[in-house]
């Protein structure tokens, strides 16, 4: 199994414009990862899958992370043929409000199909090139992305307005929040 430095130089030898960075991991697990540029990620992923020495044919885990000012998608790759791994690749969005597009890796690994749908659902990363990007766990009408750290759940999903003034007010606030389109509306209404 190659180290991350060797994998980085192999990628740069094959795709000169890849711009791969190493993200080191100080934890005892010692699992360092590679940060890809979204523009070249698809080509790099294809290289990682098809390269004779790496043969990372198995995408085990794909997930999202919500950082304070960006969203990140993390992929854990293994090789079934060579029986090595994990090689960890990650991509970052520009911000976490309006530029949240990342290239989908589903065309390379089918395994990402449901997992990217889940990331889209819970984190709101839009995967361009995904064949069927819909919410996976939440219902279709649901707005917002519950795994984001600033998500606040409503007081009661199944509110029933009653004669009490306070409850009525809360119900109205809830209704107007639901009519908004995303997290920013909710923040504004709370502020």
């Amino acid at each position, binding site marked *: 199994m190659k180290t991350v430095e060797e994998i980085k130089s192999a990628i740069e030898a094959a795709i000169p414009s890849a711009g791969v960075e190493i993200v080191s991991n100080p*934890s005892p697990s010692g699992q360092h990862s590679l940060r890809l540029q979204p523009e070249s990620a698809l080509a790099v992923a294809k290289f990682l899958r098809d390269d004779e020495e790496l043969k990372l044919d198995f995408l085990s885990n794909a997930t999202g992370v919500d950082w304070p000012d960006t969203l990140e998608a993390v992929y854990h790759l293994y090789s079934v043929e060579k029986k090595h791994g994990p090689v960890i690749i990650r991509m970052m969005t520009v911000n976490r409000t309006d530029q949240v597009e990342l290239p989908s890796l589903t065309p390379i690994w089918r395994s990402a199909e449901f997992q990217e749908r889940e990331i889209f659902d819970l984190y709101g990363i839009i995967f361009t090139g995904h064949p*069927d990007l819909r919410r996976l766990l939440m219902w279709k009408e649901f707005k917002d992305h519950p795994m984001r750290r600033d998500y606040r759940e409503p007081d009661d999903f199944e509110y029933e307005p009653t004669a009490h003034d306070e409850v009525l007010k809360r119900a109205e606030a809830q209704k107007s929040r639901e009519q908004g389109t995303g997290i920013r509306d909710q923040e504004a209404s709370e502020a």
Partner: protein
Amino acid sequence: MILAENKAEHFEGWNRPELIAESGDGELLEVAMGPHHPSTHGVFRMDVALDGERVVRLRPVFGYLHRNHEKIAEGQSYLASMPYTDRLDYICPLTNNWAYALVVEKLTGQAVPERAEYLRVILGELTRYQNHASSIGFLIQEMGASGTPLMYAFREREKILDLFEELTGARMMVNYMRFGGCRVDASPEWLDRTRKVVAGLGGFADEFERLLATNEILMARTQGVGVLRADLAVNAGVTGPMLRASGVNYDIRKVDGYGIYNRFNFRVPLGDHGDVYDRFMIRLLEMRESIKILQQALNDIPGGPVISPTAKNRGIRPKAGEAYGRIEAPKGELGFYLISDGGPNPYRYRIRPPSLINLTVLEDMCLGSDVADVVLIFGSVDIVLGEVDR
């Protein structure tokens, strides 16, 4: 049931023409199987488009049991999530505990004493045995043989659950593993009783095989049904008995050798055809391999502490960093991915659910088969909704 005219709207967002089989006269019937269909192992829905009896499209719908376990875990300490992992795949709580403990040990760099490693293997293999037995039972039940094989499997499962109850205090919600070991030690009497139960497990596997493996109806219903190609299985991230039934030699117990698995002698059974029959047969063969591991582990288990004296469980604050770890759970590769920011709660807590990802290929396996076989193919994937929806 919805008439064919509505299908375009209902299948909106569908643009994978390479997957859509040629339909006959274009008259499609759409059937929503689930979420309360008895064969769906809980609350799972498949929207199936039928041309006559033939499946032309299938769309799984998830989320009926979603409770955002990951969000809950990010709001509490590392240890507080341990009992919650029991509720993921509630047929196999001990392997869930094990996977989580393994990853936190990786993140914090804790070692596990010998005896605890042996106990983990013993409990993990007992879990695998009872999971495979009951999953075969469910599969046969869905084939129409109501009762008998499932009850045979549950009779056996009961004996194993009694052992779990005696050791951990609970039959299913065990909350047994800790970071750096296990919660309580096993008494010599418990080990003796386990040896006795394990001695009987082989006889049950024989009985099950005699009863089912050459049964004409079972063979007619399952052979050549729901075939999964090896290359698609790998690409779609299918793991566990399903992957090996397609002939791919990949068992994480062998590949990673986590815990102490490289000390035991066992084989990895592989299938030839990747159909429902192979998946059934692989589970039966894996039950036998589990018995082999159990006998070796029960024979070699050493004395000593069951949790390392330096183990830290309460109030841990792992150094900032991340760890991904995985085990071969009975249903496939169960992984946990944790990111720590140095605080008492995980910054990111992710579960890689084998049940959900094995369903990626459900449509590919079902296309072109009869609607009655969909139930069988789905049953042969072996899922638990607690883990699919989390």
